[in-house]
């Protein structure tokens, strides 16, 4: 009945991936949600742009982006996404291990829609997602049609 939502998680730390999955578990129950995981910045960009080996990847409905990623960091990935006309409407939530104002400010400067401080708590994530202007999964929007 409800459509499938694709969430891309860009994170290199396995424990953090596990804990983020835990935090997302409640959403996954409530909504038909598929979590895709990439481990570095270049993979994240390739996934969004459907470059090899992600030719068959769906366009994500939401991106959870760690700031400290190998190869290309979260800021670089964010810049690449927000500079691309086709992708810049995808909501991006930055995951930061420091709640330092400079990292947060930089994220917003580069066009992030929100940020969440690790360790990710379900409640906090939910509140942050609700505050994204075009509410991320269109959960309130009917019909949930989106390219």
């Amino acid at each position, binding site marked *: 009945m409800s459509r499938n939502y694709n969430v891309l998680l860009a994170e290199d730390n396995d*424990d*953090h991936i596990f*804990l983020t999955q835990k935090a997302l578990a409640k959403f996954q129950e409530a909504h038909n949600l598929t979590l895709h995981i990439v481990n570095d910045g270049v993979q994240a960009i390739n996934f969004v742009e459907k470059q090899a080996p992600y030719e068959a990847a769906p366009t994500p409905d939401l991106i959870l982006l760690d700031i*400290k990623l190998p190869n290309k960091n979260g800021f670089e990935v964010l810049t690449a996404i927000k500079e691309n006309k086709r992708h810049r409407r995808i909501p991006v939530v930055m995951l930061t*291990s*420091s709640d*330092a*104002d400079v990292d947060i400010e930089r994220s917003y400067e580069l066009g992030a829609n929100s940020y969440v401080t690790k360790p*990710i708590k379900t409640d906090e994530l939910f509140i942050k997602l609700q505050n994204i202007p075009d509410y991320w999964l269109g959960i309130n929007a009917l019909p949930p049609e989106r390219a």
Partner: protein
Amino acid sequence: MRFPGYTTRLMISFLFLSLLATFLTVANSYRLQLSIEQIHARQATVISGANDHNSKTPSQEIAISKTKNALKNNLLFSGFIIGLSVLMAGYTNLTLRKPLAGLLAATHHIAKGRFDHRINVSGVDELGRLISAFDTMTAELYHKDLQITGQLEQLKKTKSLLESNSEDLEKKNKEMEYFIYTVSHDLKAPLIAIQGFLAVLADEFGTAMSPKASFYLDRVQANSEQMQTLIQQLLELSRAGQAVKHLSLFSTRHIIQQVIDNLHLQIKAKNARISLRGHWPDIVGEPIRIKQALANLIDNALHYSQANAPVKIELSVASLANKWRFKVKDNGVGIEPAYQARVFDMFERLGNSTEKNPLGTGIGLAIVKKIAESHSGNVGVRSKPGRGSTFYFDISKELKQSGKSKAEVEG
């Protein structure tokens, strides 16, 4: 047209004088010649009237010979005067014009900074002495110039040494800050996992745990939080030490309200009364850092409050000559005079905290100091043990905005 120089004029005068003398002499000679001819004519008249045609009277002979002598003397004198004038002109040229020209040339050299030039004209007269004094002066200047050049060279070397040293220092500083930043981030990653798993553990197995196990879990959580604070502050310290990047005009009233809002849990826990005093101006600075400095000072005041008295904290901004002074006044435990100078050093902690397990890391005030320094200001404290403390930090009034709008910063 250039007006002839003084010595040239002098020489021209000599020549003019000699010409005048010559003219006078020639005129005089002409007059004498005339008188000779008159004598001859008179003689002829006398002779025509007399018998002896060729005979002259002796007085006439004497007159003629005297006149001829005078004529000869006149011509000789005239020649002498001309010769003398030429000599005088030559002498003037040699003794006056040339040395003066040399002196003039030398002053030109000196004016151009060439102190090695010498006139080298010998003489015992005033001009000679003047020139030799001038040469001595130039020699003195030459030596002074050499000394100054040497010192300048030395200064240049010292300067470049200092510059390369400060560049080195800046580079080391940057490396150090980058190191702290990276380490803090990397230290945080496992800690975040620890805290995350602790939360999952409490969430999924909390109810199944014995009270002892819950207590242990609680202690692990408390300590991991302490460690997180420590790492967070190290991170903030490394940032506070960096040069300010975005100076903007902002409302201090606006940010102090944000700081108080952010600290409302701690304020509530202490049941503290926070009051804003006086005028809170719009100033130029980096609002994020000034917010942090204020937050750290208020946090510090809350932390070192007296257990048995209501906690009162007064906040104000004083306008001094060239700086803003942010003051945080408390009625807390105060600081012994011996410790007052050290409280802003890293990892200095006061022993008389009211809390059994103080959360203070000893970094908070060091961060305030770095923030003040990054705004060309300083920090300080006035305190009486048992009565309270007033901490302050200064922000220079001479900072210039770096192009960001107020709305952007506050947004």
